[in-house]
Structures are given as C-alpha cells and as structure tokens.
C-alpha cells in the first residue's frame, strides 16, 4: 500500500489507572480504505485503547489525530460526529423498536411540534439498508432478527453519518460461517468507499483473510505493526505472547484403557437423533460441527440436563439412568459448560467457593463447612492448573477469561470424574491460556481420564483429539481417527456432504 495521509493516527498514548499502566506509549495509524487488525491477549489494553478513542477515558499523554488534525475526544457522540464510529461486541439495540428507530435512535428526523417524520425516517433507513444488502426492511422489529442481522442494524447505525473510521470489536463472536461472509462483504464495501477500519479479533483465520496490516499490543505496550501479506500466524502470535504456539496435530503417545462411556442410539426430540459413540479411558474424543448441530445438547443430555427420547447411556459397560446433574455427578461425569459466565461460575462468589461448589455438601466437619478442606482443594488445583489469582478470596468475576476457565476446570477435576466433558474449552480466551488449556486436556487423557471435547474451532479439535466425531444437523456423520482426518474431509462431513455414515 502506498503512503497516504492516515485517516486516524494515535501517537504515544499513555493511560494509567491507580497502580496500573494500562497503555504505555501506543502509536499506530489507519489509512483510508485499509482494514487494520488490532490484536493482543485479554488485558493487553485493546479495550482501554478503544475507550480512549471513544472519549470515555482521557489519555494521560499522547495525541489523537483525525486526518492529521489534532483532536480531543470527549464522548462517543462527539467521536461519531467526527466520523469515528464503534460497532460493539455486545449489541446495544432496543428489541421492541423497528430497524429504522434503532438506526436513528436519538436523532430521529423531526417535523413541526417535535413530531417524528416517519416518511423521511423510513426512506433514509431504506437507503442505508440498501448499501448493506440485507433482506429485512426499515419497519422490521429488531427483536425478530437473527443476531447476524442485528449486527447489520448496528452497522447501519454507524452509516447515518459519513464515517471516516469504523471500529469493529470482535464482530464475528456469535456469527455462523455464512453470516461472516455477509459481514466481510460489508467491510469490503466500506473499504472501497475509503473508510478506514480497525478490526479487533482473536481469530487468526479472519485476520489473515480480510486485513491489510496487523498491530499488536502486549501488556499495554505497542509491539509493532506487520503487513498481513508478509507475515504469518506464528510471527503474530510471537509478538502477542512473546513465544510461539504449538498447534501441531495430536499424536497419541500413550495406551488407552477400557471404554468408559458409551452412548447407543441416543435421541432427544428434534435436537439430535440416533447418536452412538464410545470414549475410552485415556482418550480425547472431539466433537466438531456447526453451531446448532446438536453437540452441546448431547453433552447436556449425558449430564442429566435434558431428558432423552430414546437410547442408552453406559458407564463402564453398565447402563445408567441419569435424570439430573446430581445423578451425573454421582456417577463420575463432569461437564465444563459452554457458557462460562452463565453456566460455569457464580461471578460474584470468590475463587474457592466456586471451585468447591459441587462437593460443598461433603466438605464438612459436623454441620459446618470445613474451611481447611476447602482451602486445601483450592490450593491443590490452583497449583496444578497454574491459576493466577491474588488468593482464594478474589471474586471470580475479576479474573481474566483464561483464569476463570481454569477455575471451572479445577472445579470439575477436583470431583475426580471418570468422564470429563469440556464444551468449547477456549471460547473467549487469549492465545497464551489457550495453549495451556490444550496441553492440560492432553495431560488429563495421559493420566487416564476419558475426555470429550466439543469445539467449533477446527485447529483446536485437530490438535487435541484422538478421534473426531463430525456432526451435522443432529446426526453423527462420521467418526474419524487422527490418521484419517484431514481438514477437507472434516469440513465436508460437517456440511452434510458425505452421505456415508460410519459408526
């Protein structure tokens, strides 16, 4: 790319909070028509930087330039007036209002006496929707739209001004592959109009697909900017975490034991149908498929959260009846759930109390909880899993995503389960913790645990699994061994392309 006047430039931004230097001299620029990735682990300072850019935090030092003009940002509204708009990770839409009302929220066109000019509102909105190439119209109720389409509304909101720079914060976190394609088209379109784009994401695949340059933050410091075309994932990862990440394919190095868990012809209404598989002690069985393929629902059924409509569950060769998580836990099945914040943790509780929750009834002396027994369990798994926290009294909600996930894993390992099911083990976790958790899963298998890993990330499934079950639309399409599987045949299987079904 030739040298152009940057549309947005940050120079030497420093932001300190009591005791923390959250941003330490960050400088980078965005050119017109460029997609510029901003990467860094959780806690590296991306969010703080965006808050400085949006005028929520005032920087202690440094300067923001818009089209080389020094600018002081005071609020997101003022930033928008200057053509800098944010598309947030968490949507902030009013579900009961129409698309048009949401897009022009707070700036509805008016007629005399403060009446809303509905005709103008709808035509203006339709103009914006046309550039986004979407299937819904200005009058649709936002609550009726899919998440992907709601995101389009959020983008539409950015287009009510003539944006000069648009910042996307993890935009694909809840999108399906097809929906991503639409989003990338919109980004390409903005690019073609000369808009500068900052794209924040953890997903390497996307970064390498759509961005022109990559800037990396680590511990609040600017680590450098790379041209996407001239670099690779390894180099970026090294900049982010200061070392390279091993994502090679798994090679089983230990012997496997007997079948620990077997499922025969399990069905649950329309969610999944006639599912059979077995997992051995010492084996990691991966489940791969698109969102909605029924993987999580299978795990929830085994864990007693759903009632199967047909089929059997066998533990160590014996058929078992599981009607609640209490049954499952008693039988030695543990589930690290998909949604850490809603299902895995009580965020307001401290680390220790979260970890010992499933067995609290057993950790007693007389009628009272034994503080010593609890702390002993916490200490053991904090050391084993290398959980970084100032102490067990720390509220779990204050930990980073990776440490939170380790608390959940510790909580279930401390139950000494026979079968450990891990649903999306590394969702929303930074790269460094990710590889730690991958290693941990492999280690657990080596110690003889039967582990089931459900994941939507192909490199992850390939990396940790001994065998992979490919699911499509509630059915098992094929079970691959580590030797058979390739990225191609796996993608085909989860798209429903391979008709043959191998149990």
């Amino acid at each position, binding site marked *: 790319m030739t040298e152009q006047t940057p549309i947005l430039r940050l120079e030497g931004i420093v932001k300190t909070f*009591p*005791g923390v230097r959250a941003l330490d001299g960050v400088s980078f620029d965005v050119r017109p028509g460029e997609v510029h990735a901003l990467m860094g682990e959780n806690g590296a300072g991306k969010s703080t930087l965006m808050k400085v850019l949006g005028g929520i935090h005032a920087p202690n030092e440094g300067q923001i330039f818009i089209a080389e003009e020094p600018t002081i940002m005071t609020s997101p509204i003022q930033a928008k007036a200057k053509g800098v708009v944010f598309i947030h990770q968490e949507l902030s839409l009013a579900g009961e209002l129409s698309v048009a009302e949401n897009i022009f929220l707070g700036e509805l066109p008016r007629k005399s006496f403060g009446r809303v000019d509905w005709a103008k509102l709808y035509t203006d909105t339709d103009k914006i929707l046309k550039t986004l190439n979407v299937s819904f119209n200005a009058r649709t109720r936002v609550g009726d739209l899919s998440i992907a389409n709601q995101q389009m509304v959020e983008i539409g909101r950015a287009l009510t001004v003539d944006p000069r720079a648009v910042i996307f914060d993890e935009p694909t976190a809840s999108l399906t592959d097809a929906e991503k394609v639409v989003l990338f088209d919109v980004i390409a379109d903005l690019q073609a109009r000369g808009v500068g784009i900052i794209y924040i994401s953890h997903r390497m695949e996307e970064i390498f697909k759509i961005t022109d340059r990559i800037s990396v933050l680590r511990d609040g410091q600017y680590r450098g900017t790379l041209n996407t075309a001239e670099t690779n994932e390894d180099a970026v990862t090294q900049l982010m975490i200061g070392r390279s990440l091993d994502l090679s394919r798994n090679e089983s190095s230990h012997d496997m034991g007997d079948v620990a868990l077997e499922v025969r012809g399990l069905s649950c209404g329309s969610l999944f149908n006639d599912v059979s598989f077995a997992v051995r002690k010492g084996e990691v069985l991966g489940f791969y498929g698109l969102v909605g393929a029924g993987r999580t629902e299978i795990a929830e059924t085994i864990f007693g*959260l759903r009632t199967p409509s047909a089929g059997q569950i066998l533990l160590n060769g014996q058929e078992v009846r599981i009607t*609640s*998580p*209490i049954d*499952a*836990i008693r039988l030695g099945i543990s*589930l690290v*759930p998909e949604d850490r914040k*809603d*299902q*895995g*943790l*009580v*965020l*307001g*509780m401290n680390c220790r*109390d979260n970890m010992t*929750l*499933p067995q*609290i*009834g057993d*950790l*007693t002396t007389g*009628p*009272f*909880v034994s503080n010593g027994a609890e702390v002993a369990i916490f200490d053991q798994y904090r050391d084993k899993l290398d959980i970084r926290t100032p102490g067990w009294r720390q509220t779990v909600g204050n930990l980073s995503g990776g440490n939170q996930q380790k608390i959940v894993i510790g*909580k279930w390992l401390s139950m000494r389960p026979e079968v450990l099911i891990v649903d999306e083990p590394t969702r929303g976790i930074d790269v460094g913790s990710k590889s730690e958790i991958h290693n941990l899963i492999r280690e657990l298998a080596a110690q003889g645990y039967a582990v089931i890993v459900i994941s939507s990330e192909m490199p992850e499934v390939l990396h940790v699994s001994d065998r992979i079950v490919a699911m499509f639309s509630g059915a098992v399409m094929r079970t691959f061994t580590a030797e058979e599987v390739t990225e191609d045949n796996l993608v085909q299987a989860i798209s429903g392309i391979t008709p043959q079904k191998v149990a």
Partner: protein
Amino acid sequence: MTGPTKQGVGNFLAKQGILIAFVIFMIGFALANQRFIAMDNIFGVVRSSAILGVMALGVTFVVIGGNLDLSVGSMMSFSTIVVLDLHDKVGPALAIPMMFALTLLLGAFIGFLVGYLKLNSLIVTLGMLSAIHGLTLTWSGGKNMDIADKSGTWFSFFGQDRIMGIPVPILIFALLAVILSMVLSKTPFGRKVYAVGGNGQAATFSGIPRARIVFMTYLVSAFCVATAGLLQASRSLGSQNTVGQGMELEVLAAVILGGASLLGGSGTVFKTVIGVLILGFIQNGLLLVGLDFYVQYMVTWAIIILAVWLDVAAKRGRLWSPIA
C-alpha cells in the same frame, strides 16, 4: 502517592458504609437529645425492633436466594391470631407447636410455587399477602382475638419477661440471629443459597437442587414469621387481624438497608441486624426530637432511597452517572 490510600478508604467506605452511617447517625441524635442513649431507651428500641428483626432474618435468606417475600406481614397477623385463638382452646403448650406447623405449611406452599413451579416470587407473595389476610379473617370471624385470662398464663413469658434484666424478645432475636448467621455463613445449605441467588443456572450446572434450596428459604422465612407471631401475641395477649399489616415493606427496607442485593447472591445476617437497628433508632430518634409520628413514614422512605443510592454510587464510583 495518595492514590492507593484514597482508594483504600473508598473501598472501606463502600464495604462498611452502612455501619459508619449508623455510628454517625447515633452520635447525631445523642447530641440532639440525651435521652436517646439512655439504657432504658436503647432497650426499648431494640425490644420493639425485635419482632421486625426476627422477620427480617428470614427474609434475608429469601432475598439472598434471589427472591422476594412480601407475605410476611400478613403471615405474621395469621400466626398471632391463630396462636391466641388456640391458646384458650387447647392450652399454650399445644397452641405454640400447632401455630408453627400451620405457618410452616403456608411457607411450604409459597416455596412450592416459587421453587418447584418457578413462578415469579413478587406475584406469588403479593397474592399470598392478600390470600393469607383473608384466611386470618376467616379464622377469627373478623373479630379481635383476646386471651380470656390475661394474668393467669405463662404464655406472656416470651413477650414480657426478662432474663437477667434483658427482655426475652431481645434474647430470642439475638439467639436466632446468631444461629441463622451460622447457618448462612458456615453450612453447605447457606453456601447453596448464595450460589442459587448469585447464578441459578450455574448452581444447577453444579448439581445444586435449585428448587429445593428456594423452597427451604421460604421455610426459614415462615419459621421466623411464626416466631415473630409468638412474640407479638405473647406481648399483647390480644390482637387485631391486621397487626402485621405493612410490615413486609419495613422488613424489606431493613434487609435492603443492610445491603443485601435484591438481585440475590449477596447480604449477610449481621448486616440485616444493623439494618433493623438503624430503622428502629431512626424512628425512635425522630420521636425524641419531637417530630410527629406520621413523619417517620416519609423519613423512613427517604432514608431507604438514600441508602440504595449510596450503595449503587459506591459500586460505580461516582454519585452521578449517565449510564447505569
């Protein structure tokens, strides 16, 4: 560096704000009127707060578990009327356990609706407020209930006697507070109440029987209400059908003043006791400085709003915020 120290102080204020407010407030009233800190006045306030306090202990469990109980005032009227009526029919020794059983039955019914059927606790207990009032009136035939021989019964012990100079209601309140505080902070059941109120779904995923825990919190609440009814009946040995009317809001006020979140998952028995005492001393102090009795309704409301405001302000770090 003043930063960390300032933060430390702010943190302390945010955590112990209610206790500090209590102390400042006591000093203020004491300066305004010497009588306020006279021993007999303090005993008087604590004794008249004991009934409210006992009820607030139970509601603390319900609120930490993530629900509300607006039926406690009406249920206390029921317990009082029932125990007075049974006193003359079957004698006090049988009347008391029978009243407890009936009140626990009401609590179990509410617990079933909220816990097992997962109905909204606001609707259920607001409805029960009215339904139990109807039940009480039906039981009494709408008449006031009085014990025939007021001087010849040991039943007055709970409300009127003293042990080593301390009024029995205060002892019962204190004993119950200590026991329930232990239950909440030291037993597995207590921990499960916090978990269910903090994040019900995560509790379910951890194998905690959410419905049963919620059910149990309403039993605790009903037990406390029955105790309060016993104290009330024993103190007056006669009662109107509406003796507990409006107390549900005072109880809730005390629990909120103590700092329990209405969203569930936080609060302690100790803090609720402080909340109860603040409420009691405010009302007493206002009378002593010569304000009309009616003023206290308004002042009580204002103080609750102030407490809630300071609580959220401490959490978000400023008094005023454009976003919640």
